[in-house]
């Protein structure tokens, strides 16, 4: 397994107010797979994603990526890990408001020694015509494309997507999912996609379902659909 999680426990608070949010999570993801992390609100899927992203700590357990353990890394080590391996996409696009589309993507490219060509990526993302626009001139879908471009341009091994379509309409959501799928295919990027939309399981190689901080389902998808064919 490229990405391995072993016996992860995570809780918040102390004493009586202690709440366990992840309980003995053990699973793995193959390199180049799309893994959809499903579950209702509060199931712990985003926390698990953040643990993979090195921005959340664990109480115990281990997380290995490409054989390297990330639990226990210090602040600089985690920064290097994120810089080298990860791309992040969120529901809120979190772009830098006073930079253009192109510049926002360049901000991601700066983190890599061997980034993708920004111009080519703009074409792939369908943002070439909008490359010099400021964010307030873009639609939500275009902004999310930009944020995907920013995450992908540095050629991350793993793309972490936290509800990337949560704020988008149906049509745009499908376009974004297709884009994520394209990125996965073109660059062999492992994708971990957090969603509460059950329909998205059909585009995954692997489905992880969480409830109350426990893995309820860990299956591989035999009849995977293209994102463009998804309906919900």
């Amino acid at each position, binding site marked *: 397994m490229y990405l391995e999680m072993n016996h992860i426990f995570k809780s*918040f*608070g102390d004493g009586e*107010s202690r*709440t366990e*949010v992840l309980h003995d999570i053990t699973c793995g993801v193959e390199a180049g797979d799309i893994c959809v992390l499903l579950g209702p*609100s*509060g199931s712990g899927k*985003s926390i698990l994603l*953040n643990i993979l*992203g090195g*921005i*959340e700590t664990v109480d115990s357990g281990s997380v290995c990526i490409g054989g390297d353990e990330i639990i226990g890394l210090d*602040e*600089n080590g985690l*920064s*290097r*890990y*994120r*810089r*080298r391996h*990860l*791309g*992040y996409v*969120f*529901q*809120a696009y*979190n*772009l*830098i*408001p*006073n*930079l253009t589309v192109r*510049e926002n993507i*360049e*901000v*991601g*490219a*700066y*983190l890599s020694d061997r980034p993708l060509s920004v111009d080519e990526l703009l074409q792939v993302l369908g943002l070439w015509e909008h490359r010099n626009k400021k964010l*307030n001139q873009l*639609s*939500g879908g275009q902004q999310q494309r930009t*944020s995907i471009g*920013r*995450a992908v341009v*540095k050629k991350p091994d793993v793309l972490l997507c*936290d*509800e990337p379509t*949560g*704020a988008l309409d149906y049509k745009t959501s499908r376009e974004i999912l297709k884009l994520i799928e394209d990125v996965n295919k073109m660059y062999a990027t492992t994708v971990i996609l957090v969603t509460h939309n059950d329909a998205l399981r059909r585009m995954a190689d692997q489905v992880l379902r969480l409830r109350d901080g426990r893995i309820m389902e860990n299956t591989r998808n035999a009849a995977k659909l293209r994102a463009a064919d998804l309906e919900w």
Partner: protein
Amino acid sequence: MKNPLRKRIGRELREEAGKYIALFLFLSMTIAIVSGFLVADDSMRYAYKQSFQKYNVEDGHFVMKEKADASLIRAVERRGVRVYPLYYKEESMRSGRTLRVFKSRTKINGQDLLRGRMPATPREIALDRLFAVNNDIDVGDTVKVSGHYFCVSGYVALADYSALFQNNGDTMFDATHFGVAVTTPKGFQRLGVSQLHYQYAWKNKDSSLTEKQQNKLADRIGRTLVKHGDVENLVQRGDNQAINFTGDDMGGDRSMFITFLYIIIVVMGFIFGVTTRTTLEREAGAIGTLRASGYTRGEMLRHYLALPTIVTLAAALTGNLLGYTVIKGYMADLYYNSYSLTSYHTLWSGTAFLLTTVIPCILITIIDALVLHWTFRIGPLQFLRRDLHRNVHRDLHYDGRRDMGRVGPYGSHRDPHCDGYRDSRNDRSLRLPFLSRFRLRIILQNRTAYLIMAVGIFFASVLLLFGLMLQPLISHYSSLVDKSQIARYQYVLKAPVPVRTHNAEKYALKSLKVNEKDEISVYGIRYDSIYLDLELPDRDSEVIASSGYMEKYGLKVGDRITLREKYSGKKYSFRIAGKYDYDIGFALFMSRPAFEATFQEYGGYFNGYFSDLKIRDLKDKYVSTVITESDLKKVSNQLEDSMGRIFDVLTGFSVLLYMLIIYLLAQLIVNKNSDAISMIKILGYSDEEVAKLYNRATGIVVVLALVFSTFLSTLLLRALWKSFLLSMTGWIPFYIPHRIYPEMMAIGLAAYFLIHKLLMRRIRKIPMARALKNMD
């Protein structure tokens, strides 16, 4: 590859131009003022020191009753000096002005021509610049000197009269009523001989004499003169106030200006800190994503530190440039308004650059870096949650299921008015009306910005109060002179000579040292004095002390004080038996018998007269000093003349500071709450109602800050005034008339209302679409 984030810097600067221009202007203005002052101060001090050599300033002078013959001059010169005649005529002008006229100087105590030209004909005269300006006499005007008309050919500064002391024993100089001038030898002859004074300046042949050796030399010259003739006066350079007063005073304001600069810099540092933090809050999501993508804490910190540092650096350099060019002249004028200084050339001052550019930049950068460092201590997750508070788990514990990066109830921001984890507090505050609750919430949520606003208002109030109080303080001092004067004429005698003037009352006087700075006059007076209404103590060791002395040194009746003689160092100890209402002077009063016993003087000893009338049967040669009301008022007149412009500058500067601080922080609060404002507009609130919520919250803080600042700044200034005067000679009582307080409030509120109008425009400009767009 260069970091593309750098492009954000220029755009942020453009987008927040109003804020950064305000900060830039204020910072550069402050630095320009202080830099200008320091440059002028350094350059003028250098020119002043250089003038001793450049204009061959005397090492001392003496005035003889008669013209000194060649044998006397030779006798003096044998002591190791070279003597130069420097006769003058002291002539009267209109309205009680006195002009001391010299022949144009060539060999000693040279003059610097500042404007026009030197007198070329017997009907021309060059006046001291300051005296001429104070009396509205321009070059080309005609002046009447003791009945003779002269055309003013130019303005000069005499190197031995940088402070226009008429007599060396005067408490203060008066550049309006006394001036100096030079004319041609023939012009000098035109003036009558009755007012001719035979003054001779000397210059030591050995220029390496120590102060002690110079004192001894002066003593020897004095003894030689006394042997050969009738000496009216002898002053060596070290004791000559007309030469030294300026040098002693120069640089005295340096620490005040530097303190003022650093107060402003610290306030600015925190304003930068708050504005930067607001930017971080606004861009928290993007910052969190970048941190999650691998940008390090250091990279982010350096990036967000760049703009404040660039603005500060640009402001400091611009300020310095302005200081060296425009402001320097204005600041030099502050000295030129007080002193008759020779011309100066601007010198590059490394110290000024360090103090006004390097240190302020470092200070602001450090303050900003600390704020950023503190903010960036939190992890990417908290940025993504837009929760920049340190305690990450508080929110998680409250809502552990909250997913990061989710769109909050008000677009992309967390709802600033709905912190659910404070339910019990909310319940308590429900007793307040809704609008009050809302405003209270705004104030609490923006407490850091409001706290800095309050601190800024406090400092502005200190400056404003200082600017407003100086004029009344000087007027009050002047009025105390009227009340405190013991007699219309107070004569200090060189020898005890009897007079027949009615009501002239004898007294004995001895000057003792309180410490290195202050001297105090110990008076021996009659039990039944008609000038001083005092219950004199019977004991020799008991005195009545003046209120000014007691106030300065915090003394009370019953305290013991120890004073010493100036030269011998002999100590005297007294117990304060009472207080005499005499605010402006340092004086102790005892009976004449007690005085004689204490200082071992003979019975009936006296060395002065109090008199309501001018004593006409007292020859000048027996009079050391005559103290009149105008002498006592010289201090206040001089303060008013030299500092008059500072009052207005300080007041204007404080008003600007009020406006800047209120504007920057209030607009920051409006900007920060733009989404919320947009949302409540959608709910149907009008612009005016929005302003009532947000601007009135600011208004409440401004009013409270003004009230507290008025009170606290009075306490602070009282303490500063006392500590300032403790380091100075004499005492000027602290005084603030009550009318100043409403004036301060009115100025502060006027500044707020002006800003309120600007903020109204800003609120109007916030579109309703903003909140909707951010929810997409």
